[in-house]
């Protein structure tokens, strides 16, 4: 089992992601430099697009990163059913790449929000959430200025029908309220997946809360889910 962490100029959570996979989960992991072409896609089981400010967020967050050499491989990998996890800026890159529906806008209150947030698990059947339970409240930090998720009403309805809304901002007790929405996201959306469920984008940072010393270990559930899924896939293939 091997993970890849894609590094763009301006990524700043790449080391955190690498650290969790390598030192907390004890799995094999490589950095993938944005200039690499990712010719051997079979080498990886899961690709992570980390948070940060790729290309300085010029034009729009993720807009330029989406055309990096490595992204052509990521798109191919995703289309073949490979697991792709985009966190924060990584989520924005996935939106720009069209691997996920919708777009990000500046936070409604124009503030850069950097604090712990609570999110409710709305779909626990995904490779990224199967270690969570439906409705479970996760305590995971956010750190972004452009996390105001927008999508047109028609697409939103389709996403709901397909169970593509994975996480929603909520209060400590799991109530999805306007007050618990840190950025003005439509329908309190904090994370979504594609139709097939193999591509997940989320604004909160699970890699920042996967160890006791960091104040929450809820982020580890996401990584544990991925590993469990990949291991069962190997089992089933036997």
């Amino acid at each position, binding site marked *: 089992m091997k993970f890849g962490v894609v590094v763009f100029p301006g990524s700043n959570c790449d080391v955190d992601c690498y650290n969790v996979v390598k030192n907390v989960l004890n799995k094999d992991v490589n950095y993938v430099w944005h200039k690499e072409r990712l010719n051997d896609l079979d080498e990886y089981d899961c690709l992570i697009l980390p948070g940060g400010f790729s290309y300085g967020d010029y*034009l*729009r967050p993720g*807009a*330029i990163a989406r*055309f990096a050499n490595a992204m052509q491989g990521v798109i191919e990998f995703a289309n073949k059913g490979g697991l792709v996890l985009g966190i924060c800026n990584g989520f924005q890159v996935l*939106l*720009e790449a069209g691997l996920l*529906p*919708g*777009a990000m*806008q*500046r*936070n*409604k*209150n*124009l503030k850069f929000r950097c604090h712990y947030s609570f999110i409710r698990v709305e779909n626990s059947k995904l490779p990224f959430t199967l270690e969570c339970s439906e409705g479970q409240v996760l305590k995971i930090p956010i750190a972004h200025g452009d996390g*105001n998720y*927008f*999508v*047109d009403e028609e697409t939103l309805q389709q996403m709901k029908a397909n169970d593509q809304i994975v996480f929603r901002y909520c209060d400590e007790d799991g109530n999805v309220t306007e007050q618990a929405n840190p950025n*003005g996201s439509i329908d309190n959306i904090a994370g979504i997946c594609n139709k097939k469920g193999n591509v997940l984008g989320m604004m909160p940072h699970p890699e920042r809360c996967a160890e006791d010393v960091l104040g929450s270990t809820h982020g580890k559930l996401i990584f544990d889910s991925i590993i469990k899924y990949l291991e069962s896939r190997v089992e089933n293939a036997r």
Partner: protein
Amino acid sequence: MLLVKVYVTLKKGVLDPKGTAVKSSLNSMGFEGVEDVRIGKYMEIKLNIDGREEAAEKVKEMCDKLLANPVIEDYDFEITEV
């Protein structure tokens, strides 16, 4: 040489948090009648292409692929000789 002026604007119905902040600033400065402010982007592209038609085709592709996000933005452009 051609000069292309590209205007990227937010689609109707898409909220503009930055524009709203500028609007309330204008209001509090005492400017009357400011009903709404929408912030967009303006870009100038110098193109070393002779044919205008070919240039327009290229710029359209640039806008569709990179310069604008079709989910939230519209674009328009004008081409002049320099």
